[in-house]
């Protein structure tokens, strides 16, 4: 295949993935709509006193409706269909990423600009959702995750799209792979964790629902713990990306491992806020609601760093002085 063919394939695959994500979203919305008709099963959110017989605390919150009821069958079917469609979309999404990398000459990882970063980041969000779905029963999250991924893809295609181009010289390093992949993974995980924290806040405000879609969302306790687990995974990855590989690469490319460049400053701010989140969960009076607020604050700084700094900060990306613009030209990562 020629490079142009790969690029066309990638562009078409992104479109196709978007369509399938949209179908999955519709199916999941239909699933949620079906829930409205359902009489909620006996509230079983109280922890089963005897640990034996349950398969983990997360399981406690998923209430199985009476077996055999036609609505519950339909809900289960729609849930499975939605998940299947999500997996298909994910595979197509992967094809788009691979195509993007194959289209470049020489072939490279598809993390050279904002468009590529966005489609990779949203891929990781979906991938983590799919991977964790079974273990943590994330079915309730589907419409939110899909809505987010779909929005991210649309933003990427409409505003951020760039033709495949060779990497700028400063990016031409194997650290690109290590540094950027860890940053993307952390970003995807933080986003997923942020969704859980947001749901925590919604649920804390609305109270335990007796009917409607919110009944599917696990109890506050479970949400809090789930959010912590995702963040506990993402935080070390972010540490690795921002405080280890970032400085090493910066040192190699720009001669100084920490420059207080706006991008670095905001990565540091994000790190500090999430460190605050982990602290908060161990501090009396900060658990739960305040910790969730901190998680969302962290997510806001993360996304501001990704989007805001590239567009609002003129001095960003190490264009320290004019005579350097060509080598350390804006990388927009």
């Amino acid at each position: 295949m020629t490079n142009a063919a790969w690029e066309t394939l990638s562009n078409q695959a992104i479109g196709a993935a978007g369509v399938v994500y949209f179908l999955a979203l519709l199916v999941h919305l239909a699933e949620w709509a079906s829930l409205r008709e359902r009489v909620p099963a006996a509230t079983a959110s109280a922890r089963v006193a005897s640990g034996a017989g349950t398969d983990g605390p997360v399981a406690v919150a998923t209430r199985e409706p009476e077996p055999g009821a036609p609505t519950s069958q339909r809900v289960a079917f729609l849930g499975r269909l939605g998940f299947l469609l999500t997996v298909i979309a994910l595979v197509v999404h992967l094809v788009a990423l691979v195509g993007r990398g194959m289209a470049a000459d020489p072939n490279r990882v598809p993390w050279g600009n904002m468009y590529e970063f966005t489609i990779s980041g949203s891929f990781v969000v979906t991938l983590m959702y799919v991977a964790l779905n079974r273990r943590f029963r994330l079915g309730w999250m589907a419409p939110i995750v899909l809505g987010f991924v779909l929005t991210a893809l649309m933003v990427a295609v409409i505003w951020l799209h760039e033709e495949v181009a060779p990497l700028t010289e400063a990016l031409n390093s194997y650290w690109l792979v290590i540094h950027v992949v860890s940053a993307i993974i952390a970003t995807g995980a933080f986003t997923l964790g942020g969704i859980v924290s947001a749901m925590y806040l919604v649920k804390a405000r609305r109270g335990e629902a007796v009917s409607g879609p919110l009944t599917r969302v696990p109890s506050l306790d479970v949400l809090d713990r789930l959010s912590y687990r995702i963040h506990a995974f993402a935080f070390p990855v972010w540490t690795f990306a921002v405080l280890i590989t970032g400085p090493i690469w910066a040192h190699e490319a720009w001669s100084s491992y920490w420059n207080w460049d706006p991008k670095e400053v905001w990565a540091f701010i994000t790190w500090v806020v999430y460190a605050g989140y982990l602290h908060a969960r161990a501090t009396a009076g900060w658990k739960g609601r305040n910790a969730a607020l901190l998680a969302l604050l962290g997510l806001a700084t993360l996304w501001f760093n990704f989007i805001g700094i590239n567009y609002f900060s003129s001095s960003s990306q190490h264009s320290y002085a004019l005579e350097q613009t060509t080598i350390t030209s804006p990388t927009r990562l």
Partner: protein
Amino acid sequence: MSDVRTEDSKGAERRPGELTVREMLRWAWRQLTSMRTALVLLLLLALAAVPGSVIPQESVDSLGTSRWKEQHPDLTPIYERLDLFSVYDSVWFSAVYILLMVSLVGCFIPRIAAYGRAVRAQPPRAPRHLSRLPDHTTYSTDEPADDHLARARQVLKGRGYRIRAAADGDDAVSAERGYLREAGNLVFHVSVLVVLVGFAVGGLFGYKGGVILVEGSTFSNTLTQYDDFAPGSLFRSEDMEPFSFTVDKFDVDWLLEGPRAGMATKFNASLSYREAPDAPTKQYDLRVNHPLTIGGTEIFLIGHGYAPVVTVRDGNGDIAYQGPTVFLPQDASFLSFGVIKALEARPRQLGFEGLFYPTFLMVDGDPTTVMPDDRRPVLSMLVYAGDLGLDDGAAQSVYELDKSDAEQVKGEDGKPFRVDIQPGQTVQLPDGLGSIRFDGVKPWTRIQISRTPGKEVALLGVVLALIGLLGSLFIRPRRIWVRARPEGEGTMVEVAALDRSGNGDMAEVLDGIVAELRGTEKAEA
């Protein structure tokens, strides 16, 4: 606070709420080292870092800073007083992180002592009522209680638990694991200090400097050779390593097509260098992401541009200036601005100021450069004659022309005389002032030279911090108790689990242990 109040009641003369200095200090220390304060300080640190990303920083972008100051004359004095142009060296930013570090030290020193005791301690005795713990289960077995407990010890030991030494009359087994979590936590916090030390060492003893070198020129590592130099406050010039190098050749590839046409790739500066004046000469290809390390000093290629070579003859026909002159690129098209000063020119000094077009083309009557590659170089400059202000000894930028005592040279039509030349061409200046010849173009490279002692310390610190972090996040400290009492014919067994981190799913752990305890029983039966 509570102990303060009791002491208050003893002192009759003191009013309520009054503290002695010692009490005050102790209170302040307690406040500072509390978890809540640490959290607030963390958030404050994040907040304090924000202005530095919005306002241009002197140390990061000095050009941008001076430009910003010109545009905001009213705000500049206020911002300067608040140190907003050097946020990360400012008193208030330092105050936040120093307080945070003090809080951190105050927090972990007592914890190290406590951990030292906890590590050696035995798991605590089983609580009287295991059923009061959130995760517990009961079952009955035919096995005698003592045998069952003995097996429970084995099972738990096999799972990496520490077991409380058995004593006479015990009806329960106490087991604990996950001691390393707190160790990870402590390692993380100590490592933060290590990173800070590494960072500080680099800032105090290191230096960073830049120099622009035209192809063919030589640099030796002494202070006078640098164009700009930023030393740390404890830097001594004796620490500079006595190396020297020559930029033999600079190559660059230009992309001619595709969406990034005009982008330069594969920068390569071929250096020949000596580590010391008497050392043998070695070769090195300096590229982006591929610095040269000499001892503790590193040399980076961070920029490039064009230096037109000209020969200026004065009114007497003597050579007044000859050689390459560095022109600074104005944008990615490499349209470059520069100044040529012929100070030896007589009767009057000559100054040229103007633009260099790498690939010149007239587009709709406007001179432009269509490629950053030097395919069709053109120099287009205005000429000044008179005193260029260098004789009074005042320092002057080589990129600026002091025109206060010089007048612009005009052509016959009375308009400013403009020199537009291509390589090989010579232009005669009006009024017999002399001539200028464009001999050719040489590339220049901008080299950054820096010495950052302590960077290995900082890296070690971050890596240790990450390891500690992983330990503190993923090691699950937990306690298990198994109690067995004879009941009727068989034995009644209670198992309870306590998750000490508050994040684990103990039900699963409990299930696993119970299954193993009962499963082995069935296997034996």
